[in-house]
């Protein structure tokens, strides 16, 4: 009953070789591998004959939490070697770690990340002790430089013992170790005296060994306790320690007789390979717990099952070296997969040659000169560095350091990327980028055609074929035709799921864009298969998956109106408005927390426009949009009342005024949608228009909105006459009064801008007779001092920009008439020079005359 615990580093070729050697020497009965135990029934799926790298993609989604993670496997993964060589040697191979959806993996996307990276203290100490900069350099020196060293196991154990040392693992790691140890104990109980091989991350090895060798806890099921580990695991309840409640209680512990029989070395019960009762592709159902096939007689640990109301599943996806290389920080593993692949296929010398050849090829391809002399220098440096560092020959870092020294002849903006962990930073020297890329490689895995895929893949394939979209030809779609709309929606849904294949090159860019044609062009389908399988985590059908993906985006967007508006547009483009209830709630809660009225107004205007006028997407009068309009209006009202900043008029805030104009339209055209009654809104605006602390543009707009929304209740308290032909429209007189109260010249223009932004037509500024407002303004401007006028000028210009030229001309005509002058009103609007230049000239003149005045030299003015 010997158990060999092999602590490895994931994705290490040296460790993979060690695993292969150990299996060949040991001929174990059981090979237990760190990997998702819920896959034990589906190991054959892994061994169908894929081209590696592939990964087990796992997803989980419940009311609170959504998570996805990968378990990547490549040719030189020790776990892969354990799996394949173990099978070939006739051993029972099992994964023994918790399923990926388990809370112990929360926040981790890469199961095979270096666990020790989370406990950096010990590795930092080791690096200092050995005088190296990074764990990778240390690892190269200790392990990869000499993979056939006789004492490799001892070195690995020593390394991981030091790394683990006195470190207290965190709760998730402890839960996993406890669980893995329970499998080891079960294997011991099941095997008799045949050897067992346990292949796990080296960081976990000391703990698993300690836990598995622990004498059994005293209890009725201990069966006399003569043999350590004769009691099967579930009674020690690792699953409950890990915080997951198995769907049914722990499997019954072995009775004393059975335990004794096992301890006496009787043959192990049959392995529980593929379980007959298990559903094959559980994409939409919770992963079923792996139940003992023989009615609970033998006692492998319970595989915790996902909660009933959760959606969890695992599928194989093609993986790539680029993805393998891209993890950083806590998620990182061994870098440079291509180099390590070469190291696995060949020896160190050959791998080094391939590395140099690949780097040089890449650089020359990109026109970066690489002379023979530099190559000689690089080679010399690499050899010398290897000697200095005590390597038997140049390793990856020696080669890279040598190449960098010889090929980079200028100052670097960023440190060499292999001296520290993390992704490539922008500004990294191009030659260095080429070196890293050459080590990373571009290999992409391929799944065997018989590999089960999630239902979404079938759904998408059938629908694309039915709509004729699987031809790889560019597609032009008229959105006004029903079939066109259908095709467009399918393509948009694939787009929001992030599945490559088609790219939209033209089409409407927002809800009210008058374009009705879309063009989609086929793109290189790299990664399409993997993306589709991964999108399967969102749902079983394209419609469902798209809605869930949009919902996630809405949640991620928070209260960022720009991103929410994009989600809204995508929802409309996907035709997902009638499919969803949850999405509405998320969009609305995001909008309800928006901090600035401006962007909110843009979203509101778009939603309102679509709700009122849409003929293309079929979303006019859509309740989703109605809800968005309502939420946005309420929020704008809320924000408007809290806005401050009267003391610093900085010109009108056009975005905010746009939001108020959108609110006006909502009340005028979609009043039935809104939960805040019109009267309450008018009260808000009345308060704002009288609030001396509100910004002037907002006050002006609020005044205008009161006029528009409640013409019978003038905000300034004056009585109004009913509109009659030939009379100024109601409110202009009040406006004339109100404008006199605005106060300082700087605020005047802003106030007017607000007013004109929301109530230009209503004020009757275009009627033929000189209105009281124009008259009041004329008086105000005439009464201004030169300085005041110059201060007020920019914002006044801004305010009148709300009028189209024809209306401005009418106003000018009335002004001329009021002054009793004759002349062309058009000429008044045209200047020969830049108005701002004129203003500056007048400022200068003003300055000169004031200077003259000061010295008593002023001419009579």
């Amino acid at each position, binding site marked *: 009953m010997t158990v060999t615990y092999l602590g490895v580093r994931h994705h290490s070729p040296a460790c993979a070789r060690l695993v292969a050697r150990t299996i060949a020497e040991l001929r174990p009965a059981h090979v237990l591998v760190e990997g998702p135990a819920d896959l034990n029934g589906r190991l054959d799926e892994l061994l169908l004959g894929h081209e590696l790298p592939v990964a087990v993609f796992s997803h989980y989604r419940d009311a609170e939490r959504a998570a996805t993670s990968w378990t990547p496997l490549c040719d030189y993964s020790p776990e892969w070697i354990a799996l394949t060589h173990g099978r070939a040697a006739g051993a029972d191979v099992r994964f023994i770690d918790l399923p990926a959806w388990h809370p112990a993996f929360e926040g981790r996307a890469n199961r095979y990340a270096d666990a020790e990276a989370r406990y950096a203290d010990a590795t930092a100490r080791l690096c200092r*002790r050995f*005088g*190296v*900069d990074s764990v990778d*350099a240390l690892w190269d020196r200790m392990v990869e430089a000499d993979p056939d060293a006789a004492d490799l196991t001892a070195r690995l154990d020593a390394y991981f013992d030091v790394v683990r040392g006195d470190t207290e693992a965190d709760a998730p790691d402890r839960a996993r170790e406890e669980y893995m140890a329970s499998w080891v104990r079960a294997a011991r109980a099941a095997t008799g005296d045949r050897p067992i091989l346990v292949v796990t991350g080296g960081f976990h090895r000391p703990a698993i060994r300690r836990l598995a060798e622990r004498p059994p806890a005293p209890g009725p099921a201990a069966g006399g306790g003569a043999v350590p580990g004769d009691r099967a695991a579930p009674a020690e309840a690792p699953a409950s320690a890990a915080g997951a409640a198995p769907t049914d209680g722990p499997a019954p512990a072995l009775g004393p007789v059975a335990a004794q029989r096992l301890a006496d070395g009787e043959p192990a019960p049959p392995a529980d390979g593929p379980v007959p009762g298990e559903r094959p592709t559980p994409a939409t159902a919770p992963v079923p717990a792996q139940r003992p096939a023989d009615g609970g007689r033998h006692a492998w640990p319970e595989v915790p099952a996902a909660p009933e109301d959760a959606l969890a599943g695992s599928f194989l996806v093609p993986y790539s070296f680029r993805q393998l290389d891209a993890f950083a920080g806590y998620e990182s593993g061994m870098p440079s997969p291509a180099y390590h692949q070469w190291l696995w296929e060949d020896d160190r010398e050959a791998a080094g040659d391939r590395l140099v050849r690949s780097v040089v090829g890449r650089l020359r391809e990109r026109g970066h000169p690489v002379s023979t002399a530099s190559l000689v*220098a690089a080679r*010399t*440096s690499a050899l*010398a*560095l290897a*000697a*200095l*560092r005590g390597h038997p020959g140049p390793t990856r*870092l020696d080669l890279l*350091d040598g190449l*960098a*020294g*010889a090929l*980079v*002849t*200028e*100052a*670097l903006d960023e*440190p*060499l990327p292999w*001296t*520290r962990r993390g992704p490539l930073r922008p500004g990294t020297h191009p030659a260095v980028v080429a070196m890293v890329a050459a080590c990373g490689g571009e290999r992409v895995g391929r799944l065997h055609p018989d590999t089960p895929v999630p239902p979404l893949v079938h759904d998408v394939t059938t629908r694309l074929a039915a709509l004729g979209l699987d031809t790889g030809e560019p597609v032009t779609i008229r959105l006004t035709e029903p079939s066109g709309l259908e095709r467009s929606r399918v393509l948009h849904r694939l787009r929001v799921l992030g599945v490559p294949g088609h790219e939209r090159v033209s089409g409407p860019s927002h809800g009210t864009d008058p374009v009705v044609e879309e063009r989609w062009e086929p793109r290189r389908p790299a990664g399409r298969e993997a993306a589709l399988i991964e999108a399967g985590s969102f749902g079983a059908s394209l419609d469902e998956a798209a809605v869930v993906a949009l919902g996630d985006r809405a949640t991620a967007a928070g209260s960022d109106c720009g991103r929410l508006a994009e989600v809204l547009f995508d929802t409309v483009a996907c035709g997902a408005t009638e499919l969803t209830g949850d999405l509405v709630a998320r969009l609305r809660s995001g909008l309800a927390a928006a901090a600035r009225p401006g962007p909110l107004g843009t979203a509101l205007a778009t939603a309102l426009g679509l709700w009122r006028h849409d003929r293309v997407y079929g979303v006019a009068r859509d309740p989703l949009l109605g809800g968005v309009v309502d939420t946005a209006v309420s929020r704008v009202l809320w924000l408007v009342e809290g806005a401050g900043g009267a003391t610093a008029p900085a010109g009108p805030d056009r975005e905010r005024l746009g939001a108020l104009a959108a609110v006006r339209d909502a009340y005028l055209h979609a009043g039935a949608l809104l939960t805040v009654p019109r009267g309450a809104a008018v009260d808000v605006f009345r308060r704002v228009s009288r609030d001396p602390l509100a910004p002037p543009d907002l006050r002006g707009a609020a005044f205008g909105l009161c006029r528009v929304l409640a013409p019978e209740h003038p905000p300034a308290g004056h009585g109004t006459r009913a509109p009659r032909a030939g009379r100024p429209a109601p409110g202009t007189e009040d406006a004339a009064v109100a404008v006199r109260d605005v106060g300082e010249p700087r605020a005047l223009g802003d106030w007017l801008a607000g007013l004109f932004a929301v109530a230009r037509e209503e004020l009757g500024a275009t009627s033929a007779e000189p209105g009281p407002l124009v008259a009041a303004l004329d008086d105000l401007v005439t009464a201004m001092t030169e300085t005041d006028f110059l201060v007020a000028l920019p914002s006044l210009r801004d305010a009148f920009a709300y009028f189209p030229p024809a209306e401005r001309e009418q106003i000018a005509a009335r002004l001329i008439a009021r002054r009793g002058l004759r002349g062309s009103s058009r000429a008044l609007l045209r200047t020969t020079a830049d108005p701002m230049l004129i203003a500056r000239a007048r400022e200068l003149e003003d300055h000169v005359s004031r200077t003259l005045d000061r010295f008593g030299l002023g001419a009579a003015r």
Partner: protein
Amino acid sequence: MTTLPAQEQRLQRPPAEVRHAEELAALRAADTDPRPPGWQLSLRAARRFVIGDQEAGIGRKFVGDTALVERALVTLATNRGLMLVGEPGTAKSLLSELIAAAVSGDSTLVVQGGAATTEDHIKYSWNYALLVSEGPSERSLVPAPMLKGMAEGRLVRFEEITRCPLEVQDSLLSLLSERVVAVPELEGPRGMVFARQGFNVIATANTRDRGVNEMSAALKRRFNFETVFPITDLDTEIALVEAEATALLRRSGVTLAPDRDVLEVLVTTFRELRSGAAHEGGGDRLSAVMSTAEAVSVAHAVGVRGWFLRAEPGDAADVVTCLAGTAAKDSPEDLARLRRYLEQRVAGRRGAQWKALHAARHLLAG
């Protein structure tokens, strides 16, 4: 710390081979590894001298990537020139001094580059009195560092090489490729000085001044470039600033050690202004040099202010006062950025010293 002979204790800054004489002697005595020709130490011993070795009692003298030091030593051992480039204050000159002390046992063969550097400062000139009385002879020849280094087989340091005029830089070309200097005034075999084994050049250049782009491609080709970066690790940088500032303060007659929390605030401020990134995200990068060396000098000034003005260690208010002179040397934009940093970024930080720093923000002049 090595005890120095009485005379050298009065020196402001003795060279590295004197400061660390005992360590060098110990390393030399214990050195069994093969030495490159002309070297005083093997590569491994030289590396241990620079990056330290706790077990052998060798202190760490250069805080930076070990791989950088290794590459630098290998470059020198493979007879290519070594060019150390980087921002000011990243300890390039210190590294070149240490390497020269380790490799040649002598770090004093230095050419200081500058606008006024001429070929005479690099190769040789004459003692004109002797030249007139005796004619050109070895006695009247005044060798410059390069000639000396070649004749004696030692490392020569060329500081701030890019500050020299291009034609002066180019006088190194033949010297580095042919490894010989012709002295046409002397006759016979004495007219050619061949480089002995052990000769090589360590140049330093500063990316802020005139960049290395100004160098001719021919000269660039004769050097291996190593970029020295600011220290990446906060704790390492704090420890370094603490050690250096404490030593400087002791030399200035201040007996109080700097406050660790104040130093942490100071170093963090320097790092964030240097990289333009704060952990809240976003920020501005100062155009002034915010190097570790500057942080040390600010820490020194802070300590001196605190001690001589109030007889206590410097506090956050001193940091603000001294920052103005370092961070915003002559640029109003930098001063504005510094003010915005103190106003906005520091405002939300926890910790007494951060709060004190925020409270003292009005001390920023201007």
